[in-house]
């Protein structure tokens, strides 16, 4: 299993969760809340039909939307309460999946984050999520 090189303009994201390290690497470009993220679909990300597994997309969504929540809160401890995902089209090995996560609303204890995930400019997957800041009522 070879590790893909960062796509042009991207650098490797530092991951700390064992599951994210297991399915990664993930790449990013830009700074702070304007960051874009990407991963390259590898052979171990696809199902038996050769299409990108929905679980990998949802994991990438959890990772990137969670990173956006961290950026917005100064790395406050938080958990995913809810995630809604929609699969618009398939991706295949070699495709680069990209997203720029967005914070839709930031309340005192709840944060809403979403993202459109695209391959070569076409949206293939959408995710919207609700996060709870721990210790905030």
């Amino acid at each position: 299993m070879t590790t893909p090189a960062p796509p042009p303009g991207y650098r490797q994201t530092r991951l700390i969760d064992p599951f994210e390290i297991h399915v990664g690497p993930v790449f990013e470009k830009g700074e702070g809340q304007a960051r874009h993220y990407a991963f390259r679909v590898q052979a171990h990300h696809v199902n038996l039909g050769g299409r990108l597994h929905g679980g990998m997309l949802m994991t990438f969504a959890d990772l990137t939307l969670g990173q956006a929540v961290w950026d917005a809160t100064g790395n406050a401890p938080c958990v995913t309460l809810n995630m809604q995902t929609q699969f618009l089209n398939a991706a295949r090995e070699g495709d680069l999946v990209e997203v720029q996560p967005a914070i839709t609303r930031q309340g005192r204890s709840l944060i809403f984050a979403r993202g459109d995930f695209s391959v070569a400019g076409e949206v293939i997957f959408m995710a919207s999520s609700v996060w709870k800041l721990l210790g905030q009522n």
Partner: protein
Amino acid sequence: MTECPAGLPEGAEPAPSGGFNQFIGPFYRLPDQEGGAVRRFCFVAEEKHMNAAGSVHGGMLMSFLDVAMSRSTRLATDAQRLSTVALTTDFVGPGRLGEVIEARVRVTRRTRTIVFLSAELVAAERILVTATGLWKIPAAP
């Protein structure tokens, strides 16, 4: 065919595997309940499934839902090609290292090309996740 490790629920059998399923698995199928209305699957939470806070990663739980609900759609319809259209997941409580995490999946309705499902993930009778989803199947010829 791999053997089932000790400690799995009675009747566990290795689920068909390959690609991403094999990379993040193994997964097991458990005997149906309620006369086939509830299809069950499980995996054992390993270090590779965790987040840095010591809980099973949400991405792993959603991946397991996708595996269990896709497999249930296939078992309910015999469809060979199917795809996840939408999945909504509520994270009710955390899963822990070493726990057997079980999926219980029901088909709510099946139309000619769409299957509606609901599922919950359970560990030691605690609900970790509730979910609903839509799967697309090819129209019968």
